[in-house]
Each structure stands twice: as C-alpha cells, then as structure tokens.
C-alpha cells in the first residue's frame, strides 16, 4: 500500500473514532444526522467516486475500499450509506450527462438518493412500478434509504428511471440492521415527464459492488473484534481477565488471523487488475466472516453485548443485514461455481 492510501486509512480511521463513535447511538436511533452528512461531505467521503469538479474525491478502488472499511468499523450504517450513494446512485447518474450536476448535491450532502435493487435479491414480493400512460405508478417494498430525495428505480418496461417527485415512503419495515437508514416500502405516483431514463447495465453495477461490500464486511469484523479484544483485556470473571481464558483468547486470535488474511487480500485485489472472480470470492467469504466474528464479539461481551449502549450488537445485526443486502448468495454461489469449474456448475 502506498503512502497516499496509508494516509487515507489513518484519516478515515480518525474520523471514524472521533466523529462516528461518539454519536453511534444517535445514528442508530434517529438516523444519520444532517450535520454528519455535511462532515462526510467536507471530507470528500460522500462523493467518494464522484469527480473532483462535482465535489467528489475520485477515489480509486483501493481508496474507496479503505474508506468503506474504516467507516464500517465504527458505523456500518454510515458505511452502507456512503456505499449506496456512490456505488449505486452516483455511478448511475454519471451515465447520464444531463443530470450530472445532481452529483454535486449528493456529494455535498444536500440531498440523498437511493437505488432499488431488492428485486434482485430473491425477494418474494418486491412490488413493482408500472409505466401506465403518462405515469409511473406502484409500490416498492424493502427500499433502503427510503427517505431519499431521489430514487433510481426499475419500471415494468425493464428500464431504470431517476425520479425526484411523486413518491412517499410508507411505514417502516422491521429493522434488522443499518438502522441509520430508513427502510420501508415506497409508493410512487410520478409523472413520466419528471422521470429521467438512466441507461444503466444493472449486472455491471452489481458486479462492481463485490469489492466495496467486502470492504464493509471486513470493516464490520474489524470494528467488532477490536472492541472485543479491548473488552477482554478489561473485564474480569473468576478472578482473571477474559483474555486469559483459552477458549475466548484462541477464538479471538483465530478471528484476528483470518481478518488480517482477508484484509491483505482485499488490498491486493483492490490495487491489482480487475478480477471479478476474486472479488466475488472475497465477498462470499468475508460476508460470512463478518457475521461469525460479530457474533463472537457479542458473546465475549456477555449480557452487556446484548445491550445497544455497548455498541456491539449492531455489528451482528448489520453483518446479517449485509449478508442479505449484499447480494443473492445462491445465485452468486452458482456464478462463482461456474467460474471455478469453467463450465456451468452448482445449478441443481
């Protein structure tokens, strides 16, 4: 890793511990505060993938991975928010020159956008938007960041549209994770005149998310494990520190080792040539890893881990939610099997 990325890692790390850690509970309970969005924006994080002239930081793959990992280690909600704005919204808008200037508003934290892809996640009743006459009408379920000002959504004509009016979010769903983001169905009744078609290739867009999702997963594991290690050094039971007991210490040592191994792989492939197979492999492994490690971290904390105030249980919930929002595991495992066997595999 070069100097520039090292600096970025430490800058974001400091941001995470100074600006996210202290308000983590607030983020979970009330959502990401407006002021925080401003702070994220002024650091260039909100427009991570946006070009400089639109207020962005124009990060490369490694820089973007480092950013998400470090944010996720303190607040998976914030990391997922930045990921959603960049990997989906900004990248989509960049495809359409006419609306390019909206990126400035997003990277500036003035507005937020969301992208609807739950229909790709084997979701039973995702809802649908129909294009009827001069309207886009319908309801979408399970929309993450549903309080957004700007939606990029699929209609029944197979196209994606950017809309900025004529919608309203409904009551929230159960909220497994990423509680900093609103998660609910959204009703649409938008005039087609206000809808702008975005010429995106959704498969490519999704393929590009393997690496950032891996980075979030690794960040979650890192954040949870660090807290568990600190706690095990402080907390006593049976007259000894928790770290002194083999089952806990060995479990954490094992997790620490796997984390380092995954982290180096993340860095390797983020700075190497694009390799979708490797990115997919990392994603599938690191999502499961994040869940296992955050569960371990919760268990190390005992009863306290079960309380929101300790900031541990959220990692476990968020890791679980990431494993759901992070991609359709079954389809992706089939895809990976086919890449590995070099012929169609894993389809029965």
């Amino acid at each position, binding site marked *: 890793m070069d100097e520039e990325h090292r600096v970025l890692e430490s800058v974001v790390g400091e941001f995470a511990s100074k600006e996210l850690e202290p308000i983590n509970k607030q983020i979970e309970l009330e959502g990401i505060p407006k002021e925080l969005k401003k702070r994220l924006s002024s650091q260039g994080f909100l427009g991570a993938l946006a070009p400089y002239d639109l207020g962005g930081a124009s990060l490369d793959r490694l820089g973007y991975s480092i950013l998400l990992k470090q944010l996720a280690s303190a607040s998976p909600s914030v990391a997922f928010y930045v990921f959603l704005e960049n990997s989906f919204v900004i990248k989509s808008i960049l495809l359409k020159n006419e609306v390019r200037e909206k990126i400035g508003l997003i990277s500036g934290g003035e507005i937020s956008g969301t992208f609807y892809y739950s229909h790709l996640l*084997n979701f039973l009743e995702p809802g649908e938007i129909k294009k009827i006459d001069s309207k886009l009408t319908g309801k979408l379920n399970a929309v993450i960041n549903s309080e957004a000002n700007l939606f990029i959504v699929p209609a029944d004509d197979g196209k994606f549209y950017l809309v900025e009016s004529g919608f309203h979010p409904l009551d929230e*769903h159960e909220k497994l994770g990423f509680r900093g983001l609103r998660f609910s169905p959204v009703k649409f009744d938008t005039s087609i005149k206000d809808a702008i078609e975005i010429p995106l290739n959704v498969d490519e867009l999704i393929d590009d998310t393997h690496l950032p999702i891996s980075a979030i997963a690794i960040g979650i594991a890192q954040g949870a494990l660090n807290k568990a290690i600190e706690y095990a050094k402080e907390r006593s039971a049976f007259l000894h520190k928790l770290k002194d007991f083999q089952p806990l210490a060995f479990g954490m040592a094992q997790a620490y080792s796997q984390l380092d191994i995954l982290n180096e792989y993340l860095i390797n492939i983020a700075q190497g040539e694009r390799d979708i197979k490797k990115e997919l492999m990392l994603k599938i492994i690191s999502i499961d890893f994040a869940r296992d490690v955050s569960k371990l971290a919760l*268990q190390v904390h005992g009863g306290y881990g079960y309380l929101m*105030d300790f900031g541990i249980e959220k990692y476990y919930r968020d890791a*679980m939610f990431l494993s759901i*929002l992070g991609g359709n595991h079954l389809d992706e495992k089939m895809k990976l099997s086919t890449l590995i066997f070099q012929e169609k595999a894993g389809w029965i």
Partner: protein
Amino acid sequence: MDFTLPEEIEEKRKKVREFALKEFTEERKRYFDENEKYPFEIRKLAYELGIINFSNPWDLLVSIEELCRVDPGLGISSFVYAFGSEILMLFGSDEQKKKYLEPVQRGEKIMGFAVTEPVAGSDVAGIASKMEKQPDGSYILNGSKMFITNGSIADYVLVLARTAPPPSEEKRHHNMSMAIVEMKWPGVSANKLKGKMGVRATDTAELVFENVRIPPENIIGEIGKGFYYVMTFFNITRIYVAAMSIGIAQGALDMIVEKAKKDKKFSSQESIQFTIAEMATRVDAARLLTYRAASLLFQFNPDPVFTSMAKYFAAETATYAAETALKVTGLDGAITSLERLFRDSKIMEIWEGSSEIEKLVIYRMFMKKMGVE
C-alpha cells in the same frame, strides 16, 4: 426406551400452539418489541386460559417451547412472571410460600430473581452485594444487580448477597445468602434497561439497593447456603432456557419450511434442501438432549451434565437456526418475524450460564462421573 410424550401433553402442545398463533399477532409481536413494553394483558390471558400450568413440568416445558416458537418476547413474558419461584418451592418456609409464592402462582403478583451484578456476570461467586446482620436480627442490604428479568415490574425479587466475607479465594462461593426483597421497600430502586437486541417484550432492569432493611423472616432457607440454592435453581431453569431455545429453532425451521412450500424455485435448490435437512436434524438433537435432561429432573434426579449439555447445545442451535433461516430466506425473512427471532435468539447463549459456563459444568461433572475429582 420410549421417545414419546404422554398424549395429554401432546394435546396441550397443540392447545398452546393454537393460543400462540391466535394471540401473538404480527401487530402485537411488533408493537411490544418496538416499544419495549411488557405485555401484561397477554400474560393475564395466558394465565386465565390455563396455558401456563406450573403443576405439571412436562406441560410447562412444551408450553414454553410452543410459545417461544411463535414469539420469544411475548412467549417468555407469558410465563416468566414466576421467575424464581422454584427457589421458594424448594427452600422457602411455609410462611414465605403463603405470602409470596401463592399470589404469584395465582397470577396476581410478579416475581424476580436477582443474582447477576454489573461486575459479575457468569461468575456468580464474584458478586459484591452485602447483607449485614443487625442487632435486631434484621439485615441491611446494599449493592446493585444487573440484567434482572422483571426488574422494573416485579412486586418482589429474590436477592443473593454476601452475608460474610469469603473464607478464602477457593471458597468464594461460601457465605452467600438469599432473601425476599419487596420492590416497594425504602432504598430499592429499579432502572429499566432499554435497547436490548431482542426479547424486548420482556422486562429487564438494573436494581439498586441502598440500606434496604430485610426482616429475618424474609431470609430464604439457611444463611450461607445461597450459592447452593442458585445452582440448584439453574439446574432447573437451564432446562427451561433449553426449551425456549428449541422453540426458537423450531420457529426458524417453520419459516424456511413455509417458504419452501410456497416457493418452488426456492425449494428446488439442493443447497436449500440440505439446509432444511441439517436444521431439522440439529433441532431434533437439541430436543432429545433437552427432553432427556428434563426427564431426569422431573423424576427428581437431575443430572447436571445432561442439563448443561441440553442448555448449551439447544442455545447454539437457536442462534444457528435463526441465522441460517434468515440467511437463506433473505429479504423475505428480514421483513418478517424471522428478523425478530434472529435478534431474540442470541440471548439464549448467555442466559442462565453462558455456553462457556455450561461447558465448564459439563467438563467438571463429566470427569467426576469418570472417576476424577
């Protein structure tokens, strides 16, 4: 060998399942979870309809299982109002039973069991609360308790505290005693804990005791035997936690099976089929371990090895099942009760002795059986 439950117990199981499916509506599950409220009405209803029957242990066991299968938060709240009652049944005086136990059994009062402390979770012998004997025979209690179920709604709690310093480091568990403390007494305060990950319909609080005067007739059993009473109690309640865990695991399995029934594409994937097979096997293994431990307990012949095996294995099965079901059902599971089941499940590995504690108990008692002291 006979692996079947008596017919009337299976009948009761059906009745409880019907009750839970009817009363634990999606709205209620969500309401009490989101608002972290104890469901007094449901508890009352469950009592009145005879869902909770403390007089038949098998009946109670399958009821716990079936209630938690539909919703752990509401399910646990339906029977946990008597938490600690076994202590009074086994070690309480006749007066104590009459005054404190019977109103609970009649569904009128709520009880709690206060052992865990902020500084001592699983390590019961490490507690710091003190009861000091006064010249008039009464005791003065000082200290605080953490994670106390029913803490902010109970009428009284059974408190464990030191009545003398430990004789040595190895004998830290000596000189502890238990007493019944009424929550309305001066010096008692409760601070409801908000923001639990799951089982949010159940009430959990931190208790603080400042110079609380306890009359001598409220001391339970013998002075100095408190640790032993607690361990005896855990040998009972661990089986109930195992039953809750089986309920959760079964509930998770139910949901993935439901999806497989409805969604042909889902059920045609062999990896999903294997997942269901593996989950069903583990749930059954956990159930058998639990019923074996229960069977011995209910014959007044509890085996701590079997009890801790059941608790540890069932609790891990609960989190495994909830996690796995949620993983494979995806968003479909995330916006239904499965999401709650997932959040509820994790506490099973912590309550009544974490998995780590259970393993230590298993090891020690198992080696004793093998002839090692």
